[in-house]
């Protein structure tokens, strides 16, 4: 191990950890060590659907997502990355299958528009103009935001990691955190299986394992793992632009630049846990939902199925910020399925909080203490 002390230790080499490390270094805090127990992007970041959207139902999420999109739009240049993070703004088409859902959508749209997010409301027939082979049986309406899109999660994460390294961040892979020394409410060091790093500041970006990491510092953090499954098809010529999402079916599907379709459904009753094996029930359920909603896409072959973990929090909203009772223990986790899309702005906010104590976007409502206060943030727009 090269350094045995650091100003900041970031735990977790996924997209959030790498973005945080980069943004810290950007602000002159370059004595940063990022610790990853496997390889960069080997966890959820390397397994996710990688959709990027601004269509949310709470103001804070909309603002965070909007700012994240603005960074995605210029990311190749911002991080000086080749070949490309492949951010494509091919839009998100969100489908409503009940009046109740449609009302919620309309409320979301009003909120989004008030925040400079350009979203259109569509009739089912208008949705057909965007995705002609969509099955609109039972559909009440749809919303569409052209600036939403999709990026390559591997390239994005590697881009942040490489940019961070260039600025002097040390990234230690195949290194596992085994303990966090806390004395009188202050962090003294992070202990790994390859040595001890003296530090006073930790940023916990350990995804589904953030609860375990927090426990090492004596903090009871309600973040747990929840398996989500996903599959990818063979590639074909471009036939579908946007991400198609139906909350009613807990279904999403996106054709990526390579030509393959990536898709997932939520599986009811999925227990808390760290199982990332694939199941045949998912494969069947996915095939049936796909056949129903996007019939021609079911004429493609599935090439691979896999699974990853959402880092779940009790209200399915991120946990950000400093975490009493331990000074300078910061959380950036609990994203519950929208970590990738928010990572760029979360990186900025965490770096601001760590270096100055305040952030350009107020995320106090997303602190770890909200659960004990009973102030859960209820976001209506979450998908399987």
């Amino acid at each position, binding site marked *: 191990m090269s350094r045995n002390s650091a100003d900041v230790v970031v735990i977790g080499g996924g997209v959030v950890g790498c973005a945080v490390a980069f943004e810290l270094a950007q602000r002159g805090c370059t004595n940063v060590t990022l610790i990853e127990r496997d390889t960069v992007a080997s966890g959820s970041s390397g397994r996710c659907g990688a959709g990027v959207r601004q269509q949310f139902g709470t103001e804070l999420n909309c603002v965070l997502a909007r700012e994240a999109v603005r960074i995605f739009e210029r990311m190749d240049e911002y991080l000086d990355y080749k070949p490309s993070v492949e951010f494509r703004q091919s839009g998100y088409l969100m489908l409503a299958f009940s009046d109740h859902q449609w009302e919620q959508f309309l409320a979301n749209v009003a909120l989004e528009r008030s925040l400079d997010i350009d979203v259109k409301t569509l009739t089912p027939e208008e949705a057909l103009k965007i995705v002609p082979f969509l099955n609109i049986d039972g559909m009440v309406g749809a919303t569409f935001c052209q600036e939403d899109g999709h990026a390559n999660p591997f390239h994005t994460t590697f881009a942040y990691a490489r940019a961070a390294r260039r600025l002097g961040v040390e990234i230690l892979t195949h290194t596992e955190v085994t303990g966090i020394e806390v004395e009188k409410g202050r962090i003294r060091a992070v202990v790994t299986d390859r040595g001890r790093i003296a530090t006073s500041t930790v940023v916990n970006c350990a995804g589904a394992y953030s609860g375990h990491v927090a426990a090492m510092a004596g903090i009871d953090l309600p973040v747990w793992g929840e398996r989500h499954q996903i599959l990818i098809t063979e590639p074909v010529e471009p036939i579908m632009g946007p991400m198609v999402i139906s909350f009613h079916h807990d279904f999403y599907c996106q054709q990526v630049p390579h030509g393959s379709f990536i898709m997932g459904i939520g599986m009811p009753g999925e227990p808390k846990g760290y*199982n990332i*094996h*694939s*199941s*045949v*029930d998912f*494969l*069947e359920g996915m095939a049936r939902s796909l056949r129903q909603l996007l019939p021609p896409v079911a004429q493609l072959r599935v090439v691979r199925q896999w699974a990853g973990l959402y880092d779940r929090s009790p209200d399915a909203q991120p946990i950000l910020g400093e975490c009493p009772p331990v000074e300078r223990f910061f959380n950036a986790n609990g994203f519950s399925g929208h970590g990738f899309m928010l990572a760029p702005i979360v990186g900025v906010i965490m770096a601001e909080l760590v270096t100055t104590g305040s952030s350009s976007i107020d995320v106090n409502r997303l602190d770890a203490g909200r659960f004990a206060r009973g102030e859960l943030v209820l976001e209506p727009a979450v998908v399987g």
Partner: protein
Amino acid sequence: MTQLREVDIAVVGAGPAGLAATLACGESGAATLLVDYMDAPGGQLIKQTHKFFGSERQFAGTRGIQIPAIFMERLSKMPNVALMWGANASGYYADSGVLTLEDGSKFVKVKAKRVIIATGAAEKPLAFENNDLPGVYGAGAVQTLMNVHGVKPGDRVLMVGSGNIGLIVSYQLIQAGVEVVALVEAAGCIGGYLVHAAKLRRAGVPILTSHTVVRALGEETVRGAVVAQVDQSWQVIPGSEREVACDVICLAVGLTPLVDMMWQAGCEMKYVPALGGHVPVRDENMRASNPAVYVAGDSGGVEEASSAMISGEIAGISAATSLGFEVKEADARLSRLKADLAAIRSGPTGEKICAGIKCATVCGGEW
């Protein structure tokens, strides 16, 4: 949801190992399902027109192509044995013990208490310039084209590799009226049995040891190759390159076990060069680290058909007895089978194989 078939033992792959395993399972009374993605059983046996050596128990004197029928004669009469051809094993889901099969139009789920993986092995690739040009084949593919479909791969073949497969397929090409312009072998000596090499020499095929192919020539298809001499560290000796006219480059540089399902099942795997690559770690009765999974034949390590039939029978007997089915004189049979295996492995190439098998077997032979 959908139908879920239930069996005691599913055997994946109806080559010599799978056929032998299924026979043993069938005899025990276990509800057994044998599947293969080809339309008929036999695996590599269907291409093996030559007579087998070895002991009577391993069909000495019989041609490979005749062996499947001998097994099928008995299997087809067992009411507890089901056979599915043209059914590809798509996945094994260890959490639920479900094997999925597809044949292009149906997707079948089978809940099996035990699974015996006998999926054989595949050609190793070779990296050289323009190696993706049409006309570059694996030897297995050439053998299938000729012996199963009666199709010549081309008119002038450069064979790469002097193991038994390279030697035998070269001879079969000559028998089919195809010219083998040369056989190159990177090592300093011929890898396969000299009796096969002698046949080739008599037929006028130049066998170039310490040589390898470095480039395929041609725009749309192979029209030639550049071969070169290599030194003892496999490095090309500059200036030794020369062109050979050919329209097929046939790669016979070794086989590697096909073990996807073992990985899917979460079995402990080990890289054993002598066995061809990654293989599942197993006990002496062919059981893998996932106790529901057994391995048999080339999937457990590349050897030959006789060894495959023996390890198949071992796997079948142990899978059946592990479920409580009675196999008459199981212990005695297992001892005799293991002795047969040892005898096969005591030949000239056997030492490396034995070391490889030991490497792939869990310490003490038991989990």
